[in-house]
């Protein structure tokens, strides 16, 4: 198979390496979870196989919830590699800082709507960062990287998911973080409803207070 040789490394991430290739005339991404030498082989194998199997399942479920994700073509459990559709576009991380305030607002609201759709269907992304969202040429947002996700309806899981989104905004888009997160929550509220959104917001506050050094907790005591 000549195709196999035409792999081109896109990115070596922390967890997996992404390569681009052509399969049957389609542009695909091969996400290979490589062994990690630092952890015991037993633990390493179980983590990698678990994520390889679960990620495509969740991506498929996300589609049913109305959230665009790359289509899965092949799940190679033995080699802990997943072949999926290549999405031509830009990461939200790359875009956000260069948009006008109104465009920023709109993008964040749409991201919030997508998270709302996932949560309403009992899906937790597990790693909501602006690197894991791709906007294609038509302006459609795709969510990727469901490796740390799970199916979970509990308030706790939803709260943590959004708390992580907020944390990711704070570390990568520190100047915009607060406003962006507010807009994410607007979009989220529009999908899940005011009552549910309020419950989740309360949960996020509770989760933040569990953190070691949150000033709010001190003020209250």
């Amino acid at each position, binding site marked *: 198979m000549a195709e196999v040789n035409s792999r081109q490394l896109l990115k070596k991430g922390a967890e997996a390496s992404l390569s681009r290739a052509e399969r049957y005339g389609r542009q695909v991404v091969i996400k290979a979870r490589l062994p990690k030498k630092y*952890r*015991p082989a*037993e633990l390493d194998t179980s983590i990698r196989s678990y994520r390889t199997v679960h990620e495509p399942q969740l991506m498929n479920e996300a589609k049913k919830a109305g959230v665009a994700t790359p289509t899965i073509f092949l799940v190679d459990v033995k080699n802990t590699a997943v072949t999926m559709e290549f999405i031509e576009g830009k990461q939200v991380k790359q875009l956000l800082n260069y948009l006008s305030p109104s465009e920023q607002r709109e993008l964040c609201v749409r991201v919030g709507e997508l998270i709302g759709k996932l949560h309403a269907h009992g899906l937790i992304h597990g790693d909501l960062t602006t690197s894991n969202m791709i906007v294609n040429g038509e302006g459609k947002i795709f969510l990727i990287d469901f490796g*740390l996700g799970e199916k979970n309806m509990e308030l706790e899981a939803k709260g943590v998911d959004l708390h992580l989104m907020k944390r990711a905004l704070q*570390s990568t888009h*520190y100047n915009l973080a607060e406003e962006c997160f507010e807009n994410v929550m607007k979009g989220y509220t529009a999908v899940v409803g005011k009552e549910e959104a309020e419950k989740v917001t309360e949960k996020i506050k509770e989760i933040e207070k569990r953190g*070691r050094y949150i000033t709010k907790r001190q003020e209250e005591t």
Partner: protein
Amino acid sequence: MKEPEEAYCLGIESTADDFGVGISTFQGEILANISDAYIPEEGGIHPREAARHHAEVADKVLSEALTKANINPKTLRVISFAQGPGLGPCLRTGATVARALASYLDVPLVGVNHSVAHIEIGKLKTCTRDPVALYVSGGNTLVAAFECGRYRIFGETLDIALGNCLDVFAREAGLRHRQGLPLGAALEQLATKGEKLVSLPYTVKGMDLSLSGLLTAAVTLLQKGKHKVEDLCYSLQENAFSMVAEVTERALAHTEKKELLLTGGVAANKRLQTMLKSIAEEHNARFNVVPHEFATDNGAMIAWTGVLSYTHGLVTPVEESFVKLRWRVDKVDVPWLK
């Protein structure tokens, strides 16, 4: 900048169980680093008892440090102290000593963030410039890197700290704190004898991690008594360290920095060092561990960070020197970095 004469900063650390005094020159030479630890009869740190200990040993530790540095207190240019984060009563004791000393000597006072100090002493002692820093101790577990005026947090625990997790398990397993051998070190020794990896929860949530579930599961298995203690120590360490390592690797891949710094009390653990070294190699980053003497809480790191702050125009007026129990590292401006 040329100083007319040799300038010194004396730093006071008292965030938890250690009361420490360090003296640093403005060039970063550590002249003294003396500390005295409060060791509870049983259980963890009782804040009030620890603070009482600090008050009792303060003058002794101070005079030992001054004797060691062999300087006249009148030549001190600035007094720094750990203003937070930490345990209230302990922090207040150190702050009181610092205020008294600064007003007696009529020199400026500088409040220093304890977590920033752990990173800065690690950088000073290993000649690191711009690392991804993993700071792991009894009270903190965070991955930070400098970005636009501050250290930003790229990963942290959602609940308990790594050192806390290991210490609680060690106590449950009947290990005792002995002079010269902290609980974590005792656990590490036992873990090297473990052979079988027992399945325990592995909880990485995005860039953060959670350790409380892991601790509960490990303690429950310990109480059931079906596994060898050595195997449980080994498995607990492997799981916890792998989680910490995974979030550290994420930060390294995300920031693309070329240095990795391990700092804080748990940095002394050899197994953790090995794991992080492997990650650094994978990402072509230079790996550094803070030297043992500066790994646990110490006064030298407060003194050195005091120098950095003071020489960049930061002073803390006495009326603003109240302690900050939950002072996050990403709330601190670090003007000495560009």
